[in-house]
Protein backbone atom coordinates (compact mmCIF):
# COMPACT_ATOMS: atom_id res chain seq x y z
CA UNK A 1 0.00 0.00 0.00
CA UNK A 2 2.93 2.30 0.71
CA UNK A 3 3.97 2.02 -2.91
CA UNK A 4 0.47 2.95 -3.94
CA UNK A 5 0.46 6.00 -1.69
CA UNK A 6 3.75 7.10 -3.14
CA UNK A 7 2.56 6.65 -6.69
CA UNK A 8 -0.33 9.00 -6.12
CA UNK A 9 1.36 11.67 -4.06
CA UNK A 10 4.30 11.90 -6.42
CA UNK A 11 4.12 15.63 -6.96
CA UNK A 12 7.22 17.63 -6.16
CA UNK A 13 5.18 20.47 -4.78
CA UNK A 14 5.29 20.96 -1.03
CA UNK A 15 2.21 21.19 1.13
CA UNK A 16 1.16 24.83 1.46
CA UNK A 17 2.19 25.97 -2.02
CA UNK A 18 -0.51 27.31 -4.28
CA UNK A 19 -1.71 24.67 -6.72
CA UNK A 20 -4.83 26.18 -8.28
CA UNK A 21 -5.19 29.90 -8.76
CA UNK A 22 -8.07 31.80 -10.37
CA UNK A 23 -8.24 35.53 -11.07
CA UNK A 24 -11.52 37.04 -12.23
CA UNK A 25 -12.31 33.73 -13.87
CA UNK A 26 -15.46 34.05 -15.99
CA UNK A 27 -17.41 31.59 -18.07
CA UNK A 28 -20.39 32.66 -20.13
CA UNK A 29 -22.18 30.05 -22.23
CA UNK A 30 -24.00 32.87 -24.01
CA UNK A 31 -24.55 36.54 -23.41
CA UNK A 32 -27.38 35.85 -21.03
CA UNK A 33 -26.05 32.68 -19.40
CA UNK A 34 -23.11 33.70 -17.27
CA UNK A 35 -22.36 30.51 -15.39
CA UNK A 36 -19.41 31.93 -13.48
CA UNK A 37 -18.42 35.55 -13.01
CA UNK A 38 -15.16 36.98 -11.72
CA UNK A 39 -14.20 34.16 -9.43
CA UNK A 40 -10.87 34.65 -7.68
CA UNK A 41 -9.33 32.16 -5.27
CA UNK A 42 -6.20 30.23 -4.39
CA UNK A 43 -6.10 26.61 -3.39
CA UNK A 44 -3.06 25.28 -1.59
CA UNK A 45 -1.44 21.90 -2.01
CA UNK A 46 -3.13 19.27 0.12
CA UNK A 47 -6.20 21.39 0.85
CA UNK A 48 -9.70 20.06 0.76
CA UNK A 49 -12.07 22.69 -0.62
CA UNK A 50 -15.84 22.29 -0.74
CA UNK A 51 -17.92 24.20 -3.27
CA UNK A 52 -21.41 24.70 -1.98
CA UNK A 53 -24.37 26.56 -3.40
CA UNK A 54 -27.81 26.14 -4.93
CA UNK A 55 -28.47 24.51 -8.27
CA UNK A 56 -27.22 26.48 -11.25
CA UNK A 57 -24.70 28.65 -9.39
CA UNK A 58 -21.84 27.35 -11.53
CA UNK A 59 -20.22 24.71 -9.33
CA UNK A 60 -19.91 22.16 -12.11
CA UNK A 61 -18.80 24.88 -14.48
CA UNK A 62 -15.97 25.87 -12.16
CA UNK A 63 -14.92 22.25 -11.76
CA UNK A 64 -14.98 21.59 -15.49
CA UNK A 65 -12.91 24.71 -16.08
CA UNK A 66 -10.26 23.44 -13.67
CA UNK A 67 -10.47 20.00 -15.32
CA UNK A 68 -9.73 21.62 -18.68
CA UNK A 69 -12.94 20.23 -20.14
CA UNK A 70 -14.34 23.63 -21.13
CA UNK A 71 -12.69 26.92 -22.04
CA UNK A 72 -12.95 30.04 -19.94
CA UNK A 73 -14.39 33.26 -21.37
CA UNK A 74 -12.04 35.60 -19.56
CA UNK A 75 -9.80 35.91 -16.53
CA UNK A 76 -7.01 33.59 -15.48
CA UNK A 77 -6.89 30.04 -14.27
CA UNK A 78 -3.62 28.29 -13.54
CA UNK A 79 -2.75 24.90 -12.14
CA UNK A 80 0.83 24.61 -10.89
CA UNK A 81 1.44 28.00 -12.47
CA UNK A 82 0.37 26.90 -15.94
CA UNK A 83 -2.70 28.25 -17.70
CA UNK A 84 -5.29 25.47 -18.06
CA UNK A 85 -6.12 24.81 -21.71
CA UNK A 86 -6.82 21.07 -21.79
CA UNK A 87 -7.19 18.15 -19.37
CA UNK A 88 -3.99 17.60 -17.40
CA UNK A 89 -2.43 14.37 -16.26
CA UNK A 90 -2.39 15.50 -12.64
CA UNK A 91 -6.10 16.34 -12.45
CA UNK A 92 -8.78 13.68 -12.24
CA UNK A 93 -12.52 14.06 -12.20
CA UNK A 94 -15.36 12.11 -10.67
CA UNK A 95 -19.05 12.65 -11.42
CA UNK A 96 -22.34 12.17 -9.64
CA UNK A 97 -22.96 9.03 -11.64
CA UNK A 98 -20.26 6.33 -11.57
CA UNK A 99 -20.09 6.06 -15.40
CA UNK A 100 -18.61 2.60 -15.41
CA UNK A 101 -18.23 0.61 -18.59
CA UNK A 102 -20.78 -2.16 -18.27
CA UNK A 103 -18.78 -4.65 -20.28
CA UNK A 104 -15.81 -4.46 -17.94
CA UNK A 105 -15.33 -5.95 -14.50
CA UNK A 106 -14.52 -3.64 -11.57
CA UNK A 107 -10.80 -4.08 -11.90
CA UNK A 108 -10.94 -3.60 -15.67
CA UNK A 109 -12.83 -0.38 -15.10
CA UNK A 110 -10.21 0.77 -12.63
CA UNK A 111 -7.51 -0.06 -15.16
CA UNK A 112 -9.06 2.17 -17.83
CA UNK A 113 -6.82 5.20 -17.11
CA UNK A 114 -3.72 3.00 -17.29
CA UNK A 115 -4.93 1.55 -20.56
CA UNK A 116 -5.44 4.99 -22.04
CA UNK A 117 -1.86 5.86 -21.14
CA UNK A 118 -0.44 2.86 -22.97
CA UNK A 119 0.30 -0.73 -22.18
CA UNK A 120 -1.02 -2.05 -18.88
CA UNK A 121 1.72 -3.57 -16.75
CA UNK A 122 1.33 -6.16 -14.01
CA UNK A 123 2.33 -3.40 -11.64
CA UNK A 124 -0.68 -1.36 -12.82
CA UNK A 125 -2.88 -4.39 -12.21
CA UNK A 126 -1.59 -4.89 -8.70
CA UNK A 127 -2.08 -1.20 -8.02
CA UNK A 128 -5.68 -1.40 -9.23
CA UNK A 129 -6.32 -4.37 -6.94
CA UNK A 130 -4.86 -2.34 -4.07
CA UNK A 131 -7.14 0.61 -4.75
CA UNK A 132 -10.20 -1.63 -4.90
CA UNK A 133 -9.25 -3.06 -1.55
CA UNK A 134 -8.75 0.44 -0.20
CA UNK A 135 -12.27 1.51 -1.20
CA UNK A 136 -13.71 -1.61 0.41
CA UNK A 137 -14.31 -3.75 -2.65
CA UNK A 138 -12.08 -6.69 -1.91
CA UNK A 139 -13.77 -9.79 -3.43
CA UNK A 140 -15.67 -7.64 -5.93
CA UNK A 141 -12.76 -7.07 -8.29
CA UNK A 142 -14.18 -9.30 -11.00
CA UNK A 143 -17.82 -8.37 -10.71
CA UNK A 144 -19.58 -6.44 -13.47
CA UNK A 145 -21.14 -3.02 -12.71
CA UNK A 146 -24.69 -4.33 -13.15
CA UNK A 147 -24.09 -6.72 -10.29
CA UNK A 148 -23.03 -3.94 -7.92
CA UNK A 149 -25.15 -1.57 -5.85
CA UNK A 150 -25.00 2.17 -6.54
CA UNK A 151 -22.67 2.76 -3.62
CA UNK A 152 -20.33 0.02 -4.75
CA UNK A 153 -20.30 1.39 -8.27
CA UNK A 154 -19.30 4.77 -6.95
CA UNK A 155 -16.50 3.08 -4.99
CA UNK A 156 -15.22 1.58 -8.23
CA UNK A 157 -15.29 5.06 -9.75
CA UNK A 158 -13.27 6.35 -6.81
CA UNK A 159 -10.69 3.58 -7.25
CA UNK A 160 -10.51 4.46 -10.94
CA UNK A 161 -9.90 8.09 -10.03
CA UNK A 162 -7.03 7.06 -7.76
CA UNK A 163 -5.62 4.86 -10.51
CA UNK A 164 -5.18 7.94 -12.73
CA UNK A 165 -2.41 8.99 -10.35
CA UNK A 166 -3.86 12.51 -10.29
CA UNK A 167 -3.06 14.51 -7.17
CA UNK A 168 -5.73 17.11 -7.84
CA UNK A 169 -9.13 15.49 -7.41
CA UNK A 170 -12.21 17.21 -8.81
CA UNK A 171 -15.34 15.65 -7.38
CA UNK A 172 -18.72 16.78 -8.67
CA UNK A 173 -21.30 15.67 -6.10
CA UNK A 174 -19.72 12.23 -6.13
CA UNK A 175 -22.07 10.74 -3.55
CA UNK A 176 -25.06 12.97 -4.26
CA UNK A 177 -27.15 10.17 -5.73
CA UNK A 178 -26.60 7.80 -2.81
CA UNK A 179 -28.66 7.32 0.32
CA UNK A 180 -27.60 9.19 3.43
CA UNK A 181 -25.99 6.25 5.27
CA UNK A 182 -23.88 5.24 2.30
CA UNK A 183 -22.97 8.84 1.66
CA UNK A 184 -21.80 9.40 5.21
CA UNK A 185 -19.63 6.28 5.17
CA UNK A 186 -18.11 7.16 1.82
CA UNK A 187 -17.39 10.68 3.03
CA UNK A 188 -15.41 9.32 5.96
CA UNK A 189 -13.51 6.97 3.68
CA UNK A 190 -12.86 9.74 1.21
CA UNK A 191 -11.43 11.90 3.97
CA UNK A 192 -9.10 9.08 5.01
CA UNK A 193 -7.94 8.52 1.44
CA UNK A 194 -7.27 12.16 0.58
CA UNK A 195 -5.36 12.60 3.85
CA UNK A 196 -3.25 9.54 3.11
CA UNK A 197 -2.40 10.67 -0.42
CA UNK A 198 -2.22 14.38 0.46
CA UNK A 199 -4.21 15.19 -2.64
CA UNK A 200 -5.61 18.62 -3.36
CA UNK A 201 -9.36 18.20 -3.53
CA UNK A 202 -12.23 20.24 -4.93
CA UNK A 203 -15.52 18.79 -3.78
CA UNK A 204 -18.91 19.98 -5.05
CA UNK A 205 -21.99 19.45 -2.93
CA UNK A 206 -25.45 20.79 -2.21
CA UNK A 207 -25.20 19.80 1.40
CA UNK A 208 -23.87 22.41 3.82
CA UNK A 209 -23.05 19.97 6.63
CA UNK A 210 -21.18 17.71 4.25
CA UNK A 211 -19.32 20.67 2.76
CA UNK A 212 -18.07 21.82 6.15
CA UNK A 213 -17.42 18.39 7.59
CA UNK A 214 -15.04 17.42 4.81
CA UNK A 215 -13.25 20.64 4.05
CA UNK A 216 -10.45 22.94 5.13
CA UNK A 217 -12.18 25.69 3.25
CA UNK A 218 -15.73 26.16 2.05
CA UNK A 219 -16.34 28.21 -1.10
CA UNK A 220 -19.91 29.45 -0.98
CA UNK A 221 -21.42 30.27 -4.36
CA UNK A 222 -24.58 32.13 -5.36
CA UNK A 223 -26.48 31.96 -8.67
CA UNK A 224 -27.47 34.31 -11.52
CA UNK A 225 -24.77 35.11 -12.31
CA UNK A 226 -22.68 32.40 -10.67
CA UNK A 227 -20.46 34.09 -8.13
CA UNK A 228 -18.03 32.97 -5.50
CA UNK A 229 -19.71 34.84 -2.66
CA UNK A 230 -17.57 33.91 0.33
CA UNK A 231 -14.66 31.73 1.39
CA UNK A 232 -14.96 30.31 4.89
CA UNK A 233 -12.09 28.59 6.69
CA UNK A 234 -12.88 25.45 8.64
CA UNK A 235 -10.51 25.27 11.60
CA UNK A 236 -11.00 21.64 12.74
CA UNK A 237 -8.12 19.21 12.24
CA UNK A 238 -8.57 16.39 9.76
CA UNK A 239 -9.47 13.54 9.78
CA UNK A 240 -12.60 14.17 11.79
CA UNK A 241 -15.20 12.20 13.67
CA UNK A 242 -18.86 12.22 12.64
CA UNK A 243 -19.72 13.52 16.11
CA UNK A 244 -18.07 16.82 15.20
CA UNK A 245 -21.30 17.72 13.45
CA UNK A 246 -23.06 17.95 16.81
CA UNK A 247 -20.74 20.57 18.29
CA UNK A 248 -21.74 24.25 18.59
CA UNK A 249 -18.61 25.36 16.71
CA UNK A 250 -19.62 23.25 13.75
CA UNK A 251 -23.15 24.57 13.79
CA UNK A 252 -21.90 28.12 13.95
CA UNK A 253 -20.16 27.52 10.61
CA UNK A 254 -23.34 26.00 9.21
CA UNK A 255 -25.22 29.13 10.18
CA UNK A 256 -22.54 31.27 8.61
CA UNK A 257 -22.81 29.47 5.26
CA UNK A 258 -26.55 29.57 5.42
CA UNK A 259 -26.40 33.27 5.99
CA UNK A 260 -24.49 33.81 2.75
CA UNK A 261 -26.89 31.65 0.79
CA UNK A 262 -29.98 33.37 2.09
CA UNK A 263 -33.14 31.92 3.57
CA UNK A 264 -33.93 29.02 1.26
CA UNK A 265 -31.15 26.68 2.41
Amino acid at each position, binding site marked *: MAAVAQAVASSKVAVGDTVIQANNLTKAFSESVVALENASFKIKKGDFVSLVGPSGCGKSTLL*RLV*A*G*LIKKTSGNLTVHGKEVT*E*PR*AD*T*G*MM*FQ*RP*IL*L*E*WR*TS*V*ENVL*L*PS*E*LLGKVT*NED*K*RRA*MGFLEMVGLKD*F*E*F*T*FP*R*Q*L*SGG*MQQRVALARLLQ*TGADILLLDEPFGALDEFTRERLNVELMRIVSQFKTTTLFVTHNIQEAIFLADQVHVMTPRPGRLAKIIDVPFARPREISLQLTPEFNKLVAEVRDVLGGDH
Partner: protein
Amino acid sequence: MSAITEGDVTALTDDADSSGQRAWIITKHLILFAVLILLWELAARAGWADPLMFPAPLGIVKQIWFIYVVQQNVWFHLYTTFAEAMAGLFFGSIMGIGLATAAALSLRFREYIKPYIIVIEATPRIAVGPLFIAWLGFGFSSKVALASLVCFFGPFVNTLTGLLNVDDEAEEMFRSMRATKWQTFWGLRVPNSATILMAGLKLGCSSAFGGALVAEFISANQGMGVLMSRYTYTLNMNGAFATLLSITFFAFLLFKIADVIDYYTVYWRSDSLMQAKSKKRKAAFLKAIAQN
Protein backbone atom coordinates in the same frame (compact mmCIF):
# COMPACT_ATOMS: atom_id res chain seq x y z
CA MET B 1 -22.72 -7.17 -0.70
CA SER B 2 -26.46 -7.25 -0.40
CA ALA B 3 -26.78 -6.18 -4.00
CA ILE B 4 -25.06 -9.30 -5.21
CA THR B 5 -27.10 -11.77 -3.21
CA GLU B 6 -30.30 -9.93 -4.00
CA GLY B 7 -29.43 -9.97 -7.66
CA ASP B 8 -28.70 -13.68 -7.52
CA VAL B 9 -31.87 -14.58 -5.72
CA THR B 10 -34.13 -12.65 -8.05
CA ALA B 11 -32.26 -14.03 -11.02
CA LEU B 12 -32.84 -17.58 -9.82
CA THR B 13 -36.49 -17.12 -8.94
CA ASP B 14 -36.99 -15.25 -12.19
CA ASP B 15 -35.62 -18.20 -14.10
CA ALA B 16 -37.67 -20.75 -12.17
CA ASP B 17 -40.79 -18.67 -12.61
CA SER B 18 -40.30 -18.04 -16.26
CA SER B 19 -39.40 -21.63 -17.14
CA GLY B 20 -42.57 -22.91 -15.48
CA GLN B 21 -44.62 -20.16 -17.00
CA ARG B 22 -42.99 -20.54 -20.36
CA ALA B 23 -43.86 -24.25 -20.52
CA TRP B 24 -47.48 -23.39 -19.88
CA ILE B 25 -47.49 -20.58 -22.43
CA ILE B 26 -45.97 -22.85 -25.04
CA THR B 27 -48.53 -25.54 -24.28
CA LYS B 28 -51.37 -23.08 -24.73
CA HIS B 29 -49.95 -21.93 -28.03
CA LEU B 30 -49.51 -25.49 -29.26
CA ILE B 31 -53.09 -26.37 -28.38
CA LEU B 32 -54.43 -23.33 -30.21
CA PHE B 33 -52.21 -24.09 -33.18
CA ALA B 34 -53.39 -27.72 -33.31
CA VAL B 35 -57.02 -26.62 -33.19
CA LEU B 36 -56.52 -24.15 -36.03
CA ILE B 37 -54.79 -26.73 -38.21
CA LEU B 38 -57.49 -29.26 -37.45
CA LEU B 39 -60.22 -26.76 -38.38
CA TRP B 40 -58.42 -25.96 -41.58
CA GLU B 41 -58.11 -29.66 -42.46
CA LEU B 42 -61.79 -30.18 -41.70
CA ALA B 43 -62.80 -27.13 -43.70
CA ALA B 44 -60.83 -28.38 -46.68
CA ARG B 45 -62.36 -31.85 -46.46
CA ALA B 46 -65.88 -30.59 -45.97
CA GLY B 47 -65.46 -28.39 -49.02
CA TRP B 48 -66.05 -25.09 -47.24
CA ALA B 49 -62.96 -23.63 -48.83
CA ASP B 50 -61.96 -24.22 -52.43
CA PRO B 51 -59.39 -27.00 -52.09
CA LEU B 52 -57.75 -25.81 -55.26
CA MET B 53 -56.87 -22.47 -53.67
CA PHE B 54 -56.55 -23.49 -50.02
CA PRO B 55 -55.02 -26.94 -49.82
CA ALA B 56 -55.43 -29.03 -46.69
CA PRO B 57 -52.56 -29.13 -44.17
CA LEU B 58 -52.01 -32.83 -44.71
CA GLY B 59 -51.59 -32.24 -48.43
CA ILE B 60 -48.98 -29.56 -47.75
CA VAL B 61 -47.06 -31.84 -45.42
CA LYS B 62 -47.10 -34.55 -48.05
CA GLN B 63 -45.85 -32.07 -50.62
CA ILE B 64 -43.03 -30.97 -48.32
CA TRP B 65 -42.01 -34.60 -47.97
CA PHE B 66 -42.25 -35.00 -51.72
CA ILE B 67 -40.09 -32.01 -52.72
CA TYR B 68 -37.46 -32.53 -50.02
CA VAL B 69 -37.14 -36.30 -49.89
CA VAL B 70 -38.68 -37.93 -52.94
CA GLN B 71 -38.08 -35.51 -55.75
CA GLN B 72 -35.33 -33.49 -54.00
CA ASN B 73 -35.54 -30.66 -56.54
CA VAL B 74 -36.08 -28.06 -53.83
CA TRP B 75 -32.56 -28.25 -52.41
CA PHE B 76 -31.00 -26.62 -55.42
CA HIS B 77 -33.45 -23.71 -55.31
CA LEU B 78 -33.15 -23.40 -51.57
CA TYR B 79 -29.39 -23.25 -51.87
CA THR B 80 -29.67 -20.50 -54.50
CA THR B 81 -31.98 -18.30 -52.45
CA PHE B 82 -30.04 -18.90 -49.27
CA ALA B 83 -26.78 -17.94 -50.95
CA GLU B 84 -28.36 -14.77 -52.38
CA ALA B 85 -29.82 -13.80 -49.05
CA MET B 86 -26.59 -14.42 -47.16
CA ALA B 87 -24.48 -12.56 -49.68
CA GLY B 88 -27.00 -9.72 -49.60
CA LEU B 89 -26.94 -9.67 -45.82
CA PHE B 90 -23.16 -9.66 -45.87
CA PHE B 91 -22.70 -6.84 -48.37
CA GLY B 92 -25.68 -4.84 -47.10
CA SER B 93 -24.45 -4.95 -43.50
CA ILE B 94 -20.85 -4.22 -44.42
CA MET B 95 -21.99 -1.19 -46.39
CA GLY B 96 -24.44 -0.12 -43.71
CA ILE B 97 -21.99 -0.49 -40.84
CA GLY B 98 -19.12 0.97 -42.84
CA LEU B 99 -20.99 4.07 -43.96
CA ALA B 100 -22.50 4.54 -40.51
CA THR B 101 -19.06 4.36 -38.93
CA ALA B 102 -17.67 6.92 -41.33
CA ALA B 103 -20.70 9.13 -40.74
CA ALA B 104 -20.31 8.80 -36.99
CA LEU B 105 -16.65 9.75 -37.15
CA SER B 106 -17.00 12.74 -39.42
CA LEU B 107 -19.66 15.39 -39.12
CA ARG B 108 -18.83 16.64 -42.61
CA PHE B 109 -19.28 13.20 -44.17
CA ARG B 110 -22.53 12.85 -42.28
CA GLU B 111 -23.79 16.11 -43.75
CA TYR B 112 -22.78 15.07 -47.26
CA ILE B 113 -24.46 11.69 -47.31
CA LYS B 114 -27.58 12.80 -45.49
CA PRO B 115 -29.62 13.86 -48.56
CA TYR B 116 -28.78 10.64 -50.41
CA ILE B 117 -29.78 8.57 -47.44
CA ILE B 118 -33.07 10.41 -47.18
CA VAL B 119 -33.80 9.85 -50.88
CA ILE B 120 -32.94 6.16 -50.69
CA GLU B 121 -34.99 5.87 -47.54
CA ALA B 122 -38.02 7.37 -49.31
CA THR B 123 -37.68 5.09 -52.35
CA PRO B 124 -39.50 1.78 -52.02
CA ARG B 125 -36.39 -0.41 -52.22
CA ILE B 126 -38.18 -3.32 -53.84
CA ALA B 127 -39.07 -1.10 -56.78
CA VAL B 128 -35.41 -0.86 -57.71
CA GLY B 129 -35.46 -4.61 -58.47
CA PRO B 130 -36.23 -4.34 -62.21
CA LEU B 131 -33.42 -1.80 -62.60
CA PHE B 132 -30.92 -4.10 -60.93
CA ILE B 133 -32.00 -6.90 -63.24
CA ALA B 134 -31.59 -4.65 -66.26
CA TRP B 135 -28.12 -3.63 -65.10
CA LEU B 136 -26.82 -6.89 -63.72
CA GLY B 137 -28.73 -9.56 -65.64
CA PHE B 138 -30.97 -12.43 -64.61
CA GLY B 139 -28.38 -14.23 -62.53
CA PHE B 140 -27.03 -14.24 -59.03
CA SER B 141 -25.64 -10.71 -58.85
CA SER B 142 -28.89 -8.83 -59.41
CA LYS B 143 -30.49 -10.83 -56.59
CA VAL B 144 -27.61 -10.11 -54.26
CA ALA B 145 -27.80 -6.45 -55.17
CA LEU B 146 -31.46 -6.17 -54.26
CA ALA B 147 -31.02 -8.19 -51.08
CA SER B 148 -28.10 -5.90 -50.10
CA LEU B 149 -30.12 -2.78 -50.74
CA VAL B 150 -33.01 -4.10 -48.69
CA CYS B 151 -30.64 -5.15 -45.87
CA PHE B 152 -28.68 -1.94 -45.81
CA PHE B 153 -30.92 0.26 -43.73
CA GLY B 154 -31.32 -1.68 -40.51
CA PRO B 155 -27.59 -1.97 -39.84
CA PHE B 156 -26.92 1.55 -41.12
CA VAL B 157 -29.46 3.40 -39.03
CA ASN B 158 -28.82 1.35 -35.91
CA THR B 159 -25.05 1.57 -36.12
CA LEU B 160 -25.20 5.32 -36.60
CA THR B 161 -27.62 5.74 -33.72
CA GLY B 162 -25.55 3.51 -31.47
CA LEU B 163 -22.28 5.27 -32.25
CA LEU B 164 -23.70 8.76 -31.86
CA ASN B 165 -25.91 8.22 -28.83
CA VAL B 166 -23.16 8.11 -26.30
CA ASP B 167 -23.55 9.47 -22.79
CA ASP B 168 -22.09 13.01 -22.71
CA GLU B 169 -20.66 12.50 -19.26
CA ALA B 170 -19.00 9.24 -20.27
CA GLU B 171 -17.36 11.06 -23.12
CA GLU B 172 -16.31 13.82 -20.77
CA MET B 173 -14.81 11.24 -18.45
CA PHE B 174 -12.74 9.82 -21.29
CA ARG B 175 -11.67 13.32 -22.17
CA SER B 176 -10.69 14.09 -18.60
CA MET B 177 -8.40 11.05 -18.80
CA ARG B 178 -6.89 12.52 -21.94
CA ALA B 179 -8.17 9.75 -24.20
CA THR B 180 -7.62 10.23 -27.92
CA LYS B 181 -10.53 10.28 -30.35
CA TRP B 182 -9.73 6.69 -31.37
CA GLN B 183 -9.47 5.47 -27.81
CA THR B 184 -12.89 6.93 -27.10
CA PHE B 185 -14.24 5.40 -30.29
CA TRP B 186 -13.02 1.87 -29.59
CA GLY B 187 -13.21 1.96 -25.83
CA LEU B 188 -16.58 3.64 -25.45
CA ARG B 189 -18.59 4.18 -28.61
CA VAL B 190 -18.20 0.78 -30.22
CA PRO B 191 -19.02 -1.42 -27.21
CA ASN B 192 -21.71 1.05 -26.25
CA SER B 193 -23.43 0.53 -29.60
CA ALA B 194 -23.21 -3.28 -29.50
CA THR B 195 -26.81 -3.85 -28.42
CA ILE B 196 -28.41 -1.64 -31.01
CA LEU B 197 -25.97 -2.71 -33.72
CA MET B 198 -26.95 -6.33 -33.20
CA ALA B 199 -30.62 -5.34 -33.36
CA GLY B 200 -29.86 -3.72 -36.72
CA LEU B 201 -28.25 -6.90 -37.99
CA LYS B 202 -31.33 -8.85 -36.93
CA LEU B 203 -33.49 -6.46 -38.94
CA GLY B 204 -31.15 -7.10 -41.86
CA CYS B 205 -31.60 -10.86 -41.48
CA SER B 206 -35.37 -10.56 -41.81
CA SER B 207 -35.10 -8.37 -44.89
CA ALA B 208 -32.50 -10.45 -46.70
CA PHE B 209 -34.81 -13.28 -47.76
CA GLY B 210 -37.51 -10.87 -48.82
CA GLY B 211 -35.09 -9.02 -51.09
CA ALA B 212 -33.76 -12.17 -52.71
CA LEU B 213 -37.26 -13.60 -53.23
CA VAL B 214 -38.70 -10.49 -54.81
CA ALA B 215 -35.75 -10.30 -57.20
CA GLU B 216 -36.45 -13.90 -58.14
CA PHE B 217 -40.12 -13.17 -58.68
CA ILE B 218 -39.20 -10.40 -61.08
CA SER B 219 -36.93 -12.51 -63.20
CA ALA B 220 -34.81 -15.58 -62.58
CA ASN B 221 -34.48 -19.20 -63.54
CA GLN B 222 -33.62 -20.67 -60.18
CA GLY B 223 -34.39 -20.09 -56.50
CA MET B 224 -37.33 -20.47 -54.17
CA GLY B 225 -39.07 -17.50 -55.74
CA VAL B 226 -38.97 -19.19 -59.13
CA LEU B 227 -40.20 -22.43 -57.64
CA MET B 228 -43.05 -20.68 -55.96
CA SER B 229 -44.08 -18.83 -59.11
CA ARG B 230 -44.02 -22.09 -61.04
CA TYR B 231 -46.21 -23.85 -58.50
CA THR B 232 -48.75 -21.03 -58.41
CA TYR B 233 -48.89 -20.73 -62.22
CA THR B 234 -49.68 -24.41 -62.48
CA LEU B 235 -52.10 -24.10 -59.54
CA ASN B 236 -50.11 -26.58 -57.53
CA MET B 237 -51.11 -24.87 -54.29
CA ASN B 238 -49.67 -27.62 -52.12
CA GLY B 239 -46.31 -26.90 -53.70
CA ALA B 240 -46.68 -23.12 -53.32
CA PHE B 241 -47.50 -23.45 -49.63
CA ALA B 242 -44.70 -25.95 -49.08
CA THR B 243 -42.23 -23.50 -50.63
CA LEU B 244 -43.54 -20.58 -48.63
CA LEU B 245 -43.28 -22.52 -45.39
CA SER B 246 -39.70 -23.52 -46.23
CA ILE B 247 -38.72 -19.90 -46.70
CA THR B 248 -40.39 -18.90 -43.46
CA PHE B 249 -38.58 -21.68 -41.66
CA PHE B 250 -35.13 -20.77 -42.94
CA ALA B 251 -35.60 -17.05 -42.45
CA PHE B 252 -36.65 -17.79 -38.90
CA LEU B 253 -33.61 -20.02 -38.42
CA LEU B 254 -31.31 -17.25 -39.60
CA PHE B 255 -32.98 -14.81 -37.24
CA LYS B 256 -32.53 -17.21 -34.33
CA ILE B 257 -28.84 -17.63 -35.12
CA ALA B 258 -28.46 -13.85 -35.05
CA ASP B 259 -30.33 -13.84 -31.76
CA VAL B 260 -27.86 -16.30 -30.24
CA ILE B 261 -24.87 -14.33 -31.53
CA ASP B 262 -26.45 -11.20 -30.06
CA TYR B 263 -26.94 -12.90 -26.70
CA TYR B 264 -23.29 -13.91 -26.45
CA THR B 265 -21.86 -10.69 -27.87
CA VAL B 266 -23.69 -8.40 -25.48
CA TYR B 267 -22.90 -10.64 -22.53
CA TRP B 268 -23.40 -7.90 -19.94
CA ARG B 269 -27.16 -8.24 -20.15
CA SER B 270 -27.17 -11.76 -18.78
CA ASP B 271 -26.38 -12.69 -15.19
CA SER B 272 -25.23 -16.18 -16.01
CA LEU B 273 -22.94 -15.03 -18.83
CA MET B 274 -21.45 -12.32 -16.61
CA GLN B 275 -20.78 -14.88 -13.92
CA ALA B 276 -19.00 -17.17 -16.35
CA LYS B 277 -16.96 -14.26 -17.72
CA SER B 278 -16.08 -13.11 -14.21
CA LYS B 279 -14.65 -16.50 -13.38
CA LYS B 280 -12.60 -16.74 -16.56
CA ARG B 281 -11.21 -13.23 -16.33
CA LYS B 282 -10.43 -13.62 -12.67
CA ALA B 283 -8.35 -16.73 -13.33
CA ALA B 284 -6.44 -15.07 -16.17
CA PHE B 285 -5.90 -11.88 -14.21
CA LEU B 286 -4.65 -13.56 -11.05
CA LYS B 287 -2.31 -15.73 -13.10
CA ALA B 288 -0.91 -12.63 -14.80
CA ILE B 289 -0.21 -10.68 -11.62
CA ALA B 290 1.28 -13.72 -9.89
CA GLN B 291 4.18 -13.44 -12.35
CA ASN B 292 6.37 -10.44 -12.40
